């Protein structure tokens, strides 16, 4: 069968680079390949920057031999809005509404990390209920992002119904966000000091539960349509294998690392917010291919559902959700430096913040979770892949250009 042959070539192509580490200063990832484009053997095409599914606007400069990629260079810059620079001329509170725009599917992680970094430097303690609500929001958005991501993954391989289901179910979660935060995509809800408001009413957890049940039902359908699908299996098994030893070399985190069997999860390793009080297991895979990563993300959805239920059960019923900040127009944060991190659905996201005692941050650096996945890693993984599978591969790495170029 043709797909089987293809996966064999993939393996050969991926094995070659790891064997050629001879010069320590010139490792395989630093090799510059030259192709004689005039020979007629190769074809160079641009894949993007229009995005094929949910990968975001980035371009791949692909050199093809037949329909197989022999070289890939990623190009970003289509979504660059200079957030890091903009923050340097905004007061701390004014940064709060722009950080969420660094990631479309998961804006709340930016809000949380920005708030956490400021709070750490300013010595602010968030009230307990505020912390629980933050955790809830983060898990809900992980759920939304994973649901859409899973749909995108299926869509990239032609399973459009799953994509539609995913987006529709994400919208049910966005409805909940609209209720809780007043916004659908960009919530601007986790503010330094806590969260903006408490639940709209006591019935809110119940309405969340209804959506969770819908999602559980959806997962059953997705299993049948996507994971027990001969075509999907044929196309994704063996595609985009990430060797476990690459995890550290490429700085791979999150589900991409866990699918390779490397047990790293910020929620477990460096628990933030209230994750220590929640009961969950790290989900690990081993095959490390696109199929495995999709499977893992499906498990993560179920895990998130479980976590949300736990949060409602364990969170305190009453209490402050935020503390008063000093007058935000003149708020000065003491000089300092810190790095805070959280586990997004794409991996470790972090904020490195430097303050100098003024009303403005000196420097904010956002470590986008997919920064290395989409840049260094994708360039290596795409080699040997059929052009038809490149989009699926990108989705499986969960590229997110806005957080790459910030």
């Amino acid at each position, binding site marked *: 069968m043709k797909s089987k042959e293809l996966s064999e070539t993939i393996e050969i192509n991926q094995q070659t680079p790891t064997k050629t580490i001879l010069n320590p200063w010139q490792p395989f990832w630093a090799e510059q390949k030259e192709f004689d484009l005039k020979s007629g053997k190769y074809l160079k095409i641009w894949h993007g920057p229009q995005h094929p599914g949910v990968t975001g606007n980035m371009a791949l400069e692909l050199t093809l031999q037949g329909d197989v990629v022999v070289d890939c260079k990623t190009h970003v810059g289509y979504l660059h809005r200079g957030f890091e620079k903009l923050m340097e001329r905004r007061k701390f509170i*004014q940064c709060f509404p722009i950080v969420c725009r660094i990631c479309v599917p998961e804006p709340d992680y930016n809000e949380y990390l920005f708030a956490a970094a400021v709070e750490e430097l300013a010595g602010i303690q968030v009230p307990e209920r505020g912390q629980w609500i933050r955790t809830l929001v983060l898990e809900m958005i992980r759920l939304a992002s994973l649901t859409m991501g899973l749909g995108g993954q299926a869509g990239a391989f032609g399973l459009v119904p799953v994509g539609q289901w995913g987006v529709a179910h994400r919208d049910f979660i966005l409805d909940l966000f*609209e209720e809780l*935060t*007043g916004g659908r995509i960009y919530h601007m809800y986790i503010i330094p000091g806590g969260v903006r408001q408490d639940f*709209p009413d006591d019935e809110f957890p119940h309405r969340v539960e209804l959506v969770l049940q819908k999602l559980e039902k959806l997962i059953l359908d997705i299993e*049948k349509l996507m994971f*027990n699908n*001969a075509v999907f299996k044929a196309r994704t098994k063996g595609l985009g294998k990430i060797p476990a030893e690459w995890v550290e070399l490429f700085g791979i985190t999150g589900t991409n690392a866990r699918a390779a069997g490397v047990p790293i999860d910020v929620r477990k390793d460096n628990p933030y917010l209230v994750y220590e009080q929640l009961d969950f297991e790290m989900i690990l895979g081993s095959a490390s291919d696109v199929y495995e990563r999709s499977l893992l993300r499906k498990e993560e959805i179920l895990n998130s559902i479980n976590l949300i239920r736990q949060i409602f059960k364990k969170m305190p019923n009453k209490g402050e959700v935020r503390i008063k900040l000093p007058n935000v127009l003149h708020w000065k944060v003491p000089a300092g430096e810190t790095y805070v991190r959280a586990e997004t659905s794409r991996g470790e996201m972090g904020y490195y913040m430097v303050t100098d005692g003024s009303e403005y941050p000196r420097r904010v650096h956002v470590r986008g979770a997919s920064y290395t996945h989409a840049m260094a890693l994708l360039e290596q993984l795409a080699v040997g892949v059929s052009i038809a599978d490149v989009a699926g591969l990108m989705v499986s790495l969960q590229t997110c250009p806005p957080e790459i170029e910030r």
Partner: protein
Amino acid sequence: MSLKDVLSPFSAWKRTLEKPFTIKKPITEREGEDRYRGFHVNDIEKCIGCGTCEEICQNEAIDMVESYPITANKGDSGLRPQIDYGRCCWCALCVDVCPTGSLGMSNDYIWVTPNPDEWVFKPGIDEKEWKDDDKGYRRTEEAWLLDPEQEPMPVLEPEVRKNTFKEMAKGYQVTMALEEASRCLECGICIEACPTHMDIPEYIRAIRENRLEDGLKILYDTNPFSESCGRVCTARCQDVCVLGHNGEPIAIRWLKRYITDNTYEKRNEILGIGKPLPESDKKIVIIGGGPSGLTAAFYLRNYGYQITIYEKHDKLGGMLRYGIPEYRLPKEVLDREIKTILDTGVEVKYKVEVGKDVSLKELQETYDAVFISVGAQKGTEMPIEGMDTLGVLIGVDFLDRIAEGERPDLGEKVIVVGGGNTAMDVCRSSVRLGAKEVQVLYRRTEQEMPANDEEIEEAKEEGVKFEFLTSPVKISRKGDKLQVECIRMKLGEPDSSGRRRPVAIEGSNYVIEADTCVMAIGQKVDSEMAQQANIKTTRWGTFDIDPTTLQTNVKNVFAGGDCGFGPDDAIRAIADGKKAAYFINKFLTKKGEPLID
């Protein structure tokens, strides 16, 4: 590949029978959630145009624009926000920061227009479908980004201060001042309310940035009595402070005091006082060394004129010295502040009463210009029987005596008649003089009392009793006690000042026994000197002046302060002094030309 994997995907077909997730067009039945952040709404009656929304907007989406029919007014700039929806990011920080709570967001989200100019509009003023929506995002108490609570001023405990004339308020510590200063929004609505229009946001910023020397300079740009004002000003600025709409206003007065408290030792050095000023050969006389006269002297000296002050008492300060008790304004504070003014090179003739010892006519002829600021020093008497009974005192005279250092014995029970700040000064001084029971009689209710709320509150803490809706009608003496006969009042129709007029209730007379009764019902101006120089006066006894230029009918004579406008507070007098300096200079430099366009 198993057969199961080939067949299982077909299970998706069952979903074809399900109701679609999508909503049919037009999307009418789906309203935005209660908290939805849609287009803005603005309660234009509540909004005061402070511009804090513009300040916090990171996208520069908000402009403050003039908005018919709203016009500028006391405590309202007349501006209203106009929002450019090409820039708005719907973050609602403007709503969360709004000090009055007027700004909100509707839950409307379905609106579109092809005309880009229509995306810029004034919420609450321009007609939009959602203009009166009450659903949508609103600021809640917990989400408010501002701190509604004032930093409390440390004061002596009531039990302690009851027995002493020592200053009651202790002044802010550094951290308190910084905390309080950081509450300021720098909108500048307060500047208009201050009669002398001090640059309040600027000096508060100086505190925040720990530039107290600059702060002092800013204070002296507009007010050479900043130290006294920092203690006793009626703080009209605080009445209009934006934060006062939903919380406590900034303690502007205490912040001013904080600057002067921390700089007075080096004041002359910081302000460059004592250094040579421009010199002119023109001479100006100022009659009355109160806040108004001294302020005029200070600024006229800066213009370079030679100044002589004629003062009736043996000390300067006017009502600040003789009208305000020591526990609010210590004499040493006043003395050092007056010294700063005199250090600019002002000549003072003490114990000379113009009109008696020297004629106004003579002064008007010998000097290039005259500024009359004699104040309103005469206490008003009540037109009732028994005003000359032993033990009946006049409020201002009483305070005058205390200021001179007298400590009269008032007996066990003191009655104070009146509801103004003078009445508060009298009753609280009486407490400190050892009266066991002090009772204030006021003919209206507490709401109508002209005294500052703070003063009333503190008087209550010190044990002063208040009796409202009552007024004395007759005072007589029986043995060693006064018999004060009072009549009950009720509130009738509002009068011209908008306060409801008290009306006596027939036959409700009753008698209160007391040792002393102090009348603190008002002051009037002693303007007898006016006729010596043919200066017109009004029927209230004040000098008849042009309200803008302070000029009297005699061209080189100006009058201001209480004797120009009737009894008012110190800051008003200071403002008049400053204004007089400006117009006297204009009068002297532009001979013959009109003073205003």
